[in-house]
C-alpha cells in the first residue's frame, strides 16, 4: 500500500523562507495547502479515475467529454463501467449526506451517450526487452497494453482458449459479452502476441521463460489449483514486494488476484496491478530503481478536507430501468449531486484570497516566482501587498497554513531587494512617523507621581478618532487605579511591521522600549488589539493588560447618566483580538454591565474578519479594502460596536452606524451622521496633535506652541472637496504647503474662465496640485490631485 504524502513540518521557519528560499522550502510550504489533493473517490480508486471531473462533465450534459475522462485512465472502459467493484463509491463524501454518487452507473452513461471510439494508442519506438505475461485476465492484459505502449515486446501466455479470464463468468445482464469484445479489440489492433492454451507448470516453467524473456509478469489469477509446482519452488517461499510487485526471483513480477487471494475479487485492482507491474518492469528493464517515487500508486488516503456543513441531503437518483442504466436526464441529475470535493476553507472566508481567483498553493508559487524575477514585470506585487495579515486563513486551515506570514515575509524580502513599490505603504509610514514625532507623542507619569506602576497606551488611531475618549479613559484610569498610571502617546510600529520595513519597525520599537524602560517598565494598558498583539511579540518582557480587562474588573464608570438598555448592537471583534479570548470575553462583560444587548456576527471571536485596514490593505489595494468593509457591514442590520478605532472608522466610511466601545462606556449612544464619511487622515492627524495639547493642558497644566508655520494658511473646503481629498490621501497640511509655496514664489497658473489658481509643489516623493481661489486671508480649495512621477521642468527660472 502506498503511503500518503509526507506532511511537511509545521515548525518550518517562515522567517527564513523567502529570504533564501529554495525549491524544497517552496514545495514544503505549497504542500501545506491541500486544495489540489485528490478527492476521496479518486484517491480510493486504485487507478485514480477522475470521478469528480466525470460528474462535472455529465452534470453539464457533456457526455463525450465525460467518456474522454474515463478512457484516459481506464484501459477497458466498457468492462469496468459494468463490473467495477467501486471503492470510489464507498469513500464518496456524498455518502454521508444522502448516499454516494453512483459513479459506475455514470461511467456507463458517459459511454452509452457518446459515440464509440476505438482506443487510439501509438506505441513509443521499439525498445529492447521482451516481457512474458502469464495470464490473459484484466491484470495481464493491462500490463501487456502498458508495456506495448512503452515500446516493449509483450507476449501473453493464456491457459485457456480466450482472453478475459473470469470476465466470461458474469451473466450477460451484468456484463454484455460484446462489451468484452469491444474492449479487447485494442489487443488485436496492437498485434500483441498471444499464446493460447499454454499453461504454466503444465506446458512450461518459469525457468523456461527466463531464457527467452527479460521480465515476466505473473497474472494467473488466484492460483485456483493451489499447484505447489507453479513457481518451481515451494509456495511458502514465494513473496511479492508490496510496492514494486517484484517477486523474490529476479525479473519476475506478480499481481492481480494472485497477490490478493481469491477472496478479494476486484477488477479495478487487477487493472491497477497491471499498470503498476508495467511501471516496475519498465524500470527494471531500464536498470533504475523499482521502488523510488511510487507514492500514491493504488488506493491511498487523501489529505483533502471538504466541509459538508450546510449541504442539503440529496438521495441517489434511482433508475427507472436498472437493466439499461441511467438515461441522460437521470445521469445529469445524479452527477449534479456530486459535491465537487475541494477544500477552499480559507478562500470561503477571505475576500482577499477569493479576489485573486486562486488558493494558497497557487499564490505561494506566484509569490515565489515574483520574488525570483530579476528583470521584468512583477505581477505578484499586488497579491503580496493586499493581504491583511489577519490570520483567519490559519484558523480555518486544516493544515494551519498562514498566508499572512507568507505575505509579510515576502514584503520584507521585497524591501530588502529594493523592489517594494514605493507608493504601497509610504503614506502609512509617514503617518506613523507623524504619530511618533514631537507633535503627537507624549510620555508622562501621572500628575503628582514620580513613577508609574501602569502606563496607558491608547495607540495612535484611538487618539486620531476620538481624543475625547482617550481623555475620559485616562481620567477613569487615574481615578480607579492606584500607584500612578502614566501616559504614553505614540504608534506601536505596526504599520512598519506590516509594510515589511524592518528598519522603521525596529526604530519604532526601540524608541518605545526606551520610553517604557525610562518609566520603570510599568504594566502597559492597551486600548488597541493591534498594539497589544504587536507589543507582545516585539517586547516579550513587557507586561500587558487590555483596557477592556481593566474596565471589566474595575467596573464601568459611574454616573454617566445615560440609559443604554435600549441600545441593540452587533459586536465586531477586531482581527488582532483573534487569539485573545479573555479580552473578547471582557468586552462582552462590559456590554452586559452597560445593559446593552449585543448580537454576535457570523464570523466572530477566533474567526473574526479584518475591517480592511490590517496589513495596510487599504493603502495597497483600496478597492479590495472597500469590498472587505462592505461584506463585513452587511452581516447585520444592527448598528455595530467595535473596540478598535480603525474598525469603527472603516465601517463609518461606508455609512454603517458604528460605535466605539468607549463611546458607549462614556454614555454616547447617538452618533452624528456627519461621522459617516471617508476616513480622513487630516482629521486624524489634527485630533492626535490636539490630544497631546489637550491632555498636557488638562492633566499637567502645560501649554504647547503651534508646530508648523503653514498652520497660518486658512483653508476652506466644501464637504465634497473634503471627501475627495481625503479619499486621495491628500492632507490639509499638503494643501497648505503648496498654497504657501505658490503665494510666496508666485509660481502658479491662472484660469481665465473662473480666476482659480492652480499650483503644484513636490513634498517628499509626491507632487501635489491644488486648485484654489483666495478670499482675503482664506484659501478656498476646489480640487487637488497628486502624482509621484517627477517633472524635470522649469529650466528657465
Amino acid at each position, binding site marked *: 500500500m502506498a503511503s500518503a504524502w509526507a506532511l511537511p513540518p509545521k515548525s518550518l521557519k517562515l522567517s527564513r523562507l523567502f529570504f533564501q528560499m529554495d525549491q524544497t522550502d517552496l514545495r514544503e510550504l505549497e504542500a501545506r495547502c491541500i486544495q489540489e489533493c485528490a478527492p476521496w473517490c479518486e484517491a480510493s480508486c486504485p487507478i485514480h479515475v477522475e470521478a469528480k471531473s466525470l460528474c462535472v462533465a455529465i452534470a453539464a450534459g457533456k457526455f463525450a467529454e465525460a467518456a474522454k475522462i474515463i478512457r484516459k485512465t481506464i484501459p477497458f472502459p466498457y468492462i469496468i463501467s459494468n463490473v467495477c467493484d467501486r471503492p470510489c463509491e464507498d469513500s464518496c463524501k456524498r455518502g454521508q449526506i444522502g448516499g454516494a454518487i453512483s459513479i459506475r452507473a455514470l461511467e456507463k452513461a458517459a459511454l452509452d451517450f457518446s459515440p464509440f471510439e476505438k482506443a487510439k494508442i501509438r506505441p513509443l519506438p521499439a525498445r529492447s526487452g521482451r516481457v512474458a505475461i502469464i495470464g490473459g485476465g484484466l491484470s495481464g492484459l493491462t500490463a501487456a497494453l502498458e508495456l506495448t505502449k512503452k515500446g516493449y515486446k509483450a507476449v501473453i501466455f493464456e491457459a485457456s482458449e480466450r482472453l478475459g479470464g473470469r470476465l466470461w463468468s458474469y451473466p450477460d445482464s451484468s456484463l454484455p459479452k460484446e462489451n468484452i469484445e469491444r474492449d479487447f479489440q485494442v489487443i488485436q489492433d496492437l498485434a500483441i502476441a498471444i499464446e493460447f492454451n499454454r499453461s504454466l507448470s503444465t506446458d512450461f516453467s518459469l525457468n523456461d521463460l527466463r531464457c527467452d524473456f527479460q521480465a515476466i509478469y505473473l497474472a494467473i489469477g488466484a492460483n485456483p489449483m493451489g499447484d505447489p509446482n507453479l513457481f518451481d519452488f515451494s509456495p511458502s517461499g514465494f513473496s511479492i514486494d508490496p510496492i514494486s510487485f517484484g517477486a523474490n526471483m529476479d525479473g519476475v513480477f506478480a499481481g492481480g488476484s494472485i497477490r490478493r487471494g481469491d477472496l478479494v475479487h476486484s477488477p479495478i485492482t487487477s487493472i491497477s496491478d497491471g499498470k503498476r507491474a508495467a511501471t516496475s518492469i519498465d524500470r527494471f528493464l531500464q536498470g533504475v530503481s523499482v521502488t523510488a517515487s511510487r507514492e500514491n500508486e493504488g488506493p491511498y488516503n487523501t489529505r483533502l478536507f471538504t466541509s459538508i456543513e450546510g449541504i442539503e441531503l440529496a438521495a441517489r437518483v434511482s433508475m427507472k430501468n436498472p437493466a439499461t442504466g441511467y438515461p441522460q436526464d437521470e445521469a445529469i441529475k445524479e452527477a449534479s449531486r456530486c459535491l465537487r470535493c475541494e477544500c477552499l476553507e480559507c478562500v470561503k472566508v477571505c475576500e482577499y484570497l477569493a479576489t485573486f481567483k486562486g488558493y494558497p498553493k497557487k499564490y505561494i508559487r506566484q509569490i515565489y516566482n515574483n520574488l525570483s524575477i530579476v528583470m521584468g514585470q512583477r505581477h505578484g506585487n499586488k497579491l503580496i501587498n493586499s493581504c491583511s495579515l489577519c490570520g483567519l486563513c490559519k484558523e480555518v486551515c486544516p493544515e494551519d497554513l498562514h498566508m499572512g506570514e507568507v505575505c509579510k515575509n515576502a514584503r520584507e524580502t521585497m524591501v530588502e531587494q529594493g523592489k517594494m513599490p*514605493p*507608493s504601497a505603504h509610504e503614506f502609512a509610514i509617514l503617518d506613523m512617523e507623524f504619530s511618533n514625532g514631537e507633535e503627537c507623542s507624549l510620555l508622562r507619569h501621572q500628575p503628582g507621581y514620580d513613577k508609574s506602576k501602569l502606563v496607558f497606551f491608547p495607540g495612535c488611531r484611538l487618539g486620531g478618532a476620538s481624543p475625547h475618549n482617550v481623555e475620559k479613559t485616562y481620567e477613569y484610569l487615574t481615578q480607579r487605579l492606584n500607584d500612578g498610571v502614566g501616559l504614553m502617546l505614540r504608534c506601536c510600529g505596526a504599520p512598519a511591521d506590516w509594510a515589511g520595513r524592518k528598519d522603521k519597525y525596529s526604530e519604532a520599537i526601540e524608541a518605545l522600549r526606551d520610553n517604557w524602560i525610562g518609566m520603570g517598565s510599568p504594566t502597559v494598558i492597551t486600548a488597541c488589539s493591534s498594539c497589544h498583539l504587536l507589543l507582545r511579540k516585539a517586547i516579550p518582557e513587557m507586561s500587558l493588560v487590555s483596557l477592556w480587562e481593566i474596565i471589566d474588573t474595575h467596573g464601568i464608570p459611574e454616573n454617566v447618566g445615560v440609559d443604554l438598555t435600549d441600545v441593540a448592537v452587533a459586536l465586531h471583534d477586531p482581527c488582532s483580538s483573534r487569539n485573545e479570548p479573555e479580552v473578547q470575553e471582557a468586552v462582552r462583560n462590559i456590554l452586559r454591565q452597560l445593559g446593552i444587548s449585543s448580537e454576535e456576527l457570523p464570523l466572530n471571536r477566533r474567526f473574526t474578519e479584518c475591517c480592511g485596514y490590517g496589513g495596510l490593505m487599504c493603502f495597497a489595494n483600496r478597492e479590495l479594502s472597500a469590498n472587505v468593509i462592505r461584506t463585513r457591514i452587511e452581516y447585520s442590520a444592527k448598528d455595530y460596536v467595535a473596540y478598535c478605532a480603525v474598525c469603527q472608522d472603516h465601517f463609518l466610511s461606508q455609512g454603517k452606524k458604528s460605535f466605539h466601545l468607549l463611546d458607549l462606556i462614556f454614555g454616547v449612544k447617538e452618533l452624528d451622521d456627519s461621522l459617516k464619511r471617508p476616513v480622513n487622515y487630516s482629521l486624524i492627524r489634527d485630533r492626535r496633535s490636539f490630544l497631546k495639547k489637550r491632555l498636557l493642558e488638562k492633566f499637567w497644566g502645560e501649554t504647547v506652541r503651534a508646530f508648523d508655520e503653514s498652520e497660518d494658511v486658512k483653508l476652506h473646503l466644501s464637504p465634497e472637496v473634503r471627501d475627495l481629498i481625503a479619499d486621495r490621501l491628500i492632507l490639509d497640511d499638503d494643501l497648505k504647503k503648496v498654497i504657501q509655496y505658490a503665494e510666496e514664489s508666485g*509660481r502658479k*497658473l491662472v484660469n*481665465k474662465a473662473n480666476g482659480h489658481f492652480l499650483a503644484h509643489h513636490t513634498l517628499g516623493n509626491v507632487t501635489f496640485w491644488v486648485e484654489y481661489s483666495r478670499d482675503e486671508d482664506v484659501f478656498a480649495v476646489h480640487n487637488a490631485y497628486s502624482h509621484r*512621477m517627477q*517633472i*524635470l*521642468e522649469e529650466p528657465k*527660472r
Partner: protein
Amino acid sequence: MSDKQRNEKDSQWSCAECGVELTLGSVEVQYMGSRYPADLLRCEKCGQVYVPEELANTKMALIEKLLEDK
C-alpha cells in the same frame, strides 16, 4: 469628457507669473530611475508646466505602477 472639451478646459490655464498662454512642449519626466520625454502644456517663458487632473489620475498613475512593479 471629449477631447475637444478637455482641450478647451486645458487651454483656460495660463502662467500667472509670466502672463503668457501655455503651449505644448516636450518635458522630461522621471520615475524609479527611468526618464521619458512627455508632451505637456507649459509656459514657454519660465518653463512652468501644467499636469491636468485626468492625466495625473490615469496615464501617469498607470505608468507609475508599471515602473514600480518592474
